């Protein structure tokens, strides 16, 4: 079954490699947004099956974007995975406590990102 994923990340290289990975390896449809505000719009417009959301972004950061997604009934149920380069335990626990599906670490392996997401989301 094909999936539609929204990637929200302000860094071009991360966003494009993640998109390439999910499209090439898994054959999923990918929508991208380069900031939290654009991500909220695209999530409501495209209703993706899951969202990959960067933590550290200028303006609206990942946790704030996540809370806004949850406030909107249209996007409230979409599974969200945070993507972060912060590897320290306290940071990861703080992010996990937000109620996201998972906290995935950067750098990710482009060959296994999709299978990692499938496992987290129970899509296997």
């Amino acid at each position: 079954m094909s999936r539609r994923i929204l990637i929200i990340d302000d860094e071009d290289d991360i966003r494009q490699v993640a998109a390439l990975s999910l499209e090439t390896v898994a054959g999923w449809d990918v929508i991208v947004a380069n900031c939290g505000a654009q991500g909220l719009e695209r999530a409501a417009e495209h209703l993706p099956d899951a969202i990959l959301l960067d933590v550290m972004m200028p303006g609206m950061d990942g946790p704030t974007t996540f809370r806004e997604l949850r406030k909107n009934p249209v996007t409230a149920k979409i599974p969200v995975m945070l993507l972060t380069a912060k590897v320290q335990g306290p940071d990861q626990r703080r992010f996990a406590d937000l109620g996201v599906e998972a906290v995935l670490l950067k750098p990710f392996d482009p060959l296994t990102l999709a299978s990692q997401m499938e496992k987290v989301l129970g899509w296997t």
Partner: protein
Amino acid sequence: MTSAAPTQPQPMAAALARMWAKFLPEIDARLKILEESAGANPLSAEQQTAAHSAAHKLAGSLGMFGLHRGTELARQTELALAETPVAATQADLADWAAELRALIQAPNQ
């Protein structure tokens, strides 16, 4: 395709090589910020913030291209620059930046 199994390593490798070439100027610019901060004496608060951000971005991206040692070095730099005063000597910062420079210039070696 319904499975996300990594069954296409060659197309991915070729596509990643293209991405590497595309983003090399950006990666190089981030590394230059680290090199400049390593040579700054004294290091201003603005330079430290910019270098911390550059190191964070490098830590998050180099490993995607297979440069895992690069991610380690960038993360080490990021952690040192998160402290005030910086939790590394100028010589350490310069050594880490030099090793990063060598890795980025010869990613397949």
